[in-house]
């Protein structure tokens, strides 16, 4: 079969600003098209719902129609008698095979949550919590039977409003916890009151962020297959962290990990939505165990909206202190966030707020910082980590305050940033919140952005148009993003989420390379960059490289995709394994050629003389001899043409990336509509492995960030019921409203790895809401109006303008 990558001549856009990482670097750094995606353009991918197994049954869940209820009785006799129905089970039935879990982390001191079950036991705590499972031969039969389930329930008092969650009058969601507080944290690095008292100017505001959700285009889906004869569980899962689920299934079902295989192949979008263990996941496995046959669960869109995690509902009161000269002196903030009735398993829902505390003020060299965080329970869908975890909140708060401060002292918003960012020569350093920053490039990035957007000309255009009654605004966001996490994030807190990742690289007899990696593919192009890295590390043509991921039976153990770790952690493992394989290839070649390995190199599928480049031995010939003619090799020599290497980043809790974004918008003061005209992003993710893929990561993430800034919100009524739980009413960015997005790179490789790559998947989401909000407020400045509540809807703009009350 013809291979899918053609015309890959080296030299296409290979950046020259950083030294090569391999001897003969051809692909790392080039905009190489991702191999293996032709099948997706031909409709030949295989997502979970495309898989059909013999005797596969289908589950549909009866979910709580109210936000808080006591389950009195489940009447299922009619449903049981419906055609095709195999099993109807409730929480008590599943609790016999699946243990409950409590999602807390040991290093988040004082954090609390309550035990949670695969299906609600006695009580359901949010609209959408699964209560009864119906398994039938077909999905339609399961859904038909669902309509004949009756549950007697009694509605319980509600705690939905996070503002009143801790009031004495508010009902307790879990009385045994004593209050509705999941986690609280205070940080005070000192002298904040004095600094604010002595500052030339103080600006403050209250920020609101709407609850939103991921809306992965492929809903959450899995097929669990318990094979009673083998006592083995196989789960096909649309998921980001297969080894994590293997471990959790083992623990919750009391099975040895060796009896469990988790397979995650084509995943139709994830964004953090598919890195959490949902009750539905355990329920589907439990049902398969009870039935001894495969069971498929595919969420429909309506249930996705109330059962996928939500994120980002925060109310932040914050202020900034500056001097007349533009020096930022300090930040002070108070963050309140509501997380639903349970902390999500196993990452916990406290992490998002914790990140807000870590990140506010992060790009700037101020010394004084005080922060307070309250994470409270409420009877709404659980929230947890979603793309950019906490970053969009922290960045919007910080950057809006910086703009307000600039306005107060009459300084240009780009200038105040240039004055205050931590200088590029100050690293490594520690931020005011205590975050360890390895090496960043704020100054270089701001400089590049200023040129890229032609800032002075744009300001002139804005001023001229204002004369004509056209109100445009320019907004900035300086961003830091944490990537390449060490074990400090989860491991030390007791969560069994691998911080290391492994790669196996094998030379096959024909000279082909097979690469197995713990981090999988959800569309980011992970497999594509691994091909590039492996080809360069070994010294072969990229068309020779095959990458396999997403199967716990096959790949080295690893953490999977989260915190933008695929390139920096997984990629480093591939590099190390590829280079080790090349060393082994040279050992075999030395034996075959009866020469010193030191004088040999691998170049373009051949072993060559390192000094002259003379071709000595094609890898195809080396493979033939190594695998099939060991009789011709010395008796004491065995070729090792498959090697595995692991990598864990240990130097810092995280490796931070940085960047800066700018947004150009037009606001119609009569309608409140915002038109996005253009968006720029300069980002520094260390060594850029594939500029085209990084650009698209940035753009996709920026558009998701814009979604949060302008459109997306899970709206609830007072009864805790979601009002817009469908795609028609829950707005997301569509192509017509989105601007063109220009992306440029600055490269400051991390020294914590050979590859030097940092993550790139989330910075766009982190910065876009701040840039867009600041641009809107810049446009509204002539009216002395501003809006700090996201999503910034036309109504909120009109309200800010005093046109509606």
């Amino acid at each position, binding site marked *: 079969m013809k291979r*899918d990558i053609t015309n890959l001549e080296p030299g296409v856009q290979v950046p020259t600003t950083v030294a090569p990482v391999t001897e003969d670097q051809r692909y790392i750094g080039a905009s190489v*098209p*991702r191999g293996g*995606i*032709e099948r*997706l*353009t*031909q*409709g*030949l*991918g*295989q*997502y979970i*719902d*495309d898989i059909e197994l013999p005797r596969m049954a289908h589950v549909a869940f009866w979910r709580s129609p109210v936000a808080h209820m006591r389950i009195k009785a489940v009447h299922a006799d009619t449903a049981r008698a419906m*055609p095709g129905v195999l099993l109807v089970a409730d929480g008590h039935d599943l609790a016999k095979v699946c243990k409950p879990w409590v999602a807390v982390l040991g290093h988040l001191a004082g954090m609390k949550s309550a035990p949670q079950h695969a299906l609600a036991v006695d009580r359901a705590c949010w609209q959408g919590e699964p209560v009864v499972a119906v398994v039938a031969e077909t999905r339609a039969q399961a859904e*038909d039977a669902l309509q004949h389930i009756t549950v007697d329930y009694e509605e319980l008092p509600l705690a939905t409003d996070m503002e009143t969650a801790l009031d004495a009058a508010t009902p307790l969601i879990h009385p045994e916890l004593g209050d509705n507080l999941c986690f609280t944290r205070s940080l005070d690095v000192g002298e904040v009151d004095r600094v604010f008292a002595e500052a030339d100017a103080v600006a403050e505001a209250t920020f609101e962020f709407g609850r939103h959700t*991921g*809306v*992965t*285009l*492929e*809903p959450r889906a899995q097929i669990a297959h318990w094979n009673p004869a083998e006592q083995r569980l196989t789960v096909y899962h649309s998921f980001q962290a297969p080894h994590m689920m293997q471990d959790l299934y083992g623990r919750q079902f009391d099975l040895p990990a060796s009896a469990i295989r988790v397979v995650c192949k*084509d*995943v*139709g*979008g*994830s*964004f953090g939505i598919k890195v959490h263990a949902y009750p539905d996941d355990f329920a589907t496995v439990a049902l398969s165990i009870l039935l001894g046959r495969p069971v498929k669960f595919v969420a*429909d*869109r*309506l249930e996705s909206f109330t059962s996928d995690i939500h994120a980002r509902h925060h109310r932040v009161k914050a202020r900034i202190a500056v001097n007349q000269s533009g020096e930022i002196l300090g930040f002070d903030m108070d963050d309140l966030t509501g997380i639903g009735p349970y902390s999500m398993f196993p990452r916990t829902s406290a992490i998002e707020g914790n990140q807000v505390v870590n990140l506010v003020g992060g790009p700037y060299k101020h010394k004084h910082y005080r922060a307070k965080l309250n994470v409270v329970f409420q009877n709404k869908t659980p929230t947890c980590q979603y793309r950019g975890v906490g970053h969009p909140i922290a960045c919007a708060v910080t950057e809006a305050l910086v703009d307000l401060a600039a306005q107060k002292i009459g300084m240009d918003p780009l200038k105040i940033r240039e004055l205050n960012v931590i200088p590029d020569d100050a690293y490594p350093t520690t931020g005011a919140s205590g975050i360890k920053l390895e090496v960043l490039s704020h100054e270089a990035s701001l400089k590049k952005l200023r040129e890229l957007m032609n800032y002075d000309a744009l300001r002139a255009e804005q001023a001229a148009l204002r004369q004509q009654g056209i109100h445009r605004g320019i907004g900035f966001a300086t961003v830091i993003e944490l990537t390449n996490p060490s074990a400090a994030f989860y491991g030390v807190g007791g969560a069994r989420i691998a911080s290391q990742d492994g790669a196996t690289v094998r030379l096959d007899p024909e000279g082909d390379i097979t690469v197995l990696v713990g981090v999988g593919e*959800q*569309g*980011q*192009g992970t497999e594509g960059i691994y091909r590039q890295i492996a080809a360069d590390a070994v010294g072969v043509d990229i068309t020779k490289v095959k990458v396999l991921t997403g199967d716990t039976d096959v790949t080295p153990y690893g953490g999977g995709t989260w915190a933008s770790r695929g390139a920096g952690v997984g990629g480093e493992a591939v590099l190390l394994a590829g280079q080790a394989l090349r060393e082994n290839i040279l050992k075999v070649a030395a034996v075959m050629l009866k020469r010193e390995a030191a004088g040999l190199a691998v170049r373009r599928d051949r072993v060559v003389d390192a000094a002259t480049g003379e071709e000595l031995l094609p890898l195809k010939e080396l493979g033939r001899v190594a695998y099939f003619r060991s009789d011709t090799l010395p008796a004491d020599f065995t070729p090792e043409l498959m090697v595995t290497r692991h990598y864990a980043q240990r130097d810092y809790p995280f490796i931070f990336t940085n960047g800066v974004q700018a947004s150009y918008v037009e606001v119609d003061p009569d309608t409140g509509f915002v038109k996005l005209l253009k968006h720029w992003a300069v980002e520094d993710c260390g060594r850029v492995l594939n500029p*085209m*893929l990084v650009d*698209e990561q*940035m*753009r*996709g*993430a*920026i*558009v*998701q960030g814009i979604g949060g800034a302008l459109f997306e919100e899970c709206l609830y009524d007072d009864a805790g019921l979601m009002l817009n739980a*469908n*795609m*028609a009413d829950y707005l*997301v*960015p*569509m*192509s*017509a*409203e*989105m601007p*063109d*997005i220009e992306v440029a790179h600055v490269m400051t490789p991390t020294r914590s790895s050979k590859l030097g790559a940092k993550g790139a998947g989330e910075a*766009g989401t982190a910065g876009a809401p701040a840039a867009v909000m600041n641009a809107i407020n810049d446009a509204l400045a002539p009216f002395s109006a501003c809006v700090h509540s996201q999503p910034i809807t036309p109504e909120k703009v009109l309200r800010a303008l005093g046109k509606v009350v």
Partner: protein
Amino acid sequence: MADLHPLHVTVNGQAHRCSIAPRTHLVDFLREDLGLKGSHLGCEHGVCGACTVELNGQIVRGCLTLAVQADGGSVQTIEGLSQSGVIRDLQQAFVARNALQCGFCTSGMLMAAKELVETRPEATRAEVREWISGNYCRCTGYHAIVDAICDVLRQRKETQA
């Protein structure tokens, strides 16, 4: 459940005669009865466009069209278009521009793009954005998709000139 209805339909050039429950949606018929898994289900309520297929030469939402509505008609799915090669240039442009990430929206997006390049050869970048605004993509940010479609509009114009 109601009685089955007879259905005569040509899918990707191949004739099918079968009986089908009247409530079956076209996309479920294609996916489940014919095993054509290229059309995806993102919402099942007509909003996302992932289920887009061609019915009698026009794109429709496979999740809003009943299979019986296709009776006597002709359906093209992404599999058929791939095999006949009529959208090879679009598929290549999508790969070259990295205009897909997870690929879940891609079949529907290509269906929409095909109708655009065939019926609006003069479309501007803004018109391309508008045309595909009936199709969700949660991964790409749309920019690369617009680039890819504009590339094909340009190429097709050049080959015609």
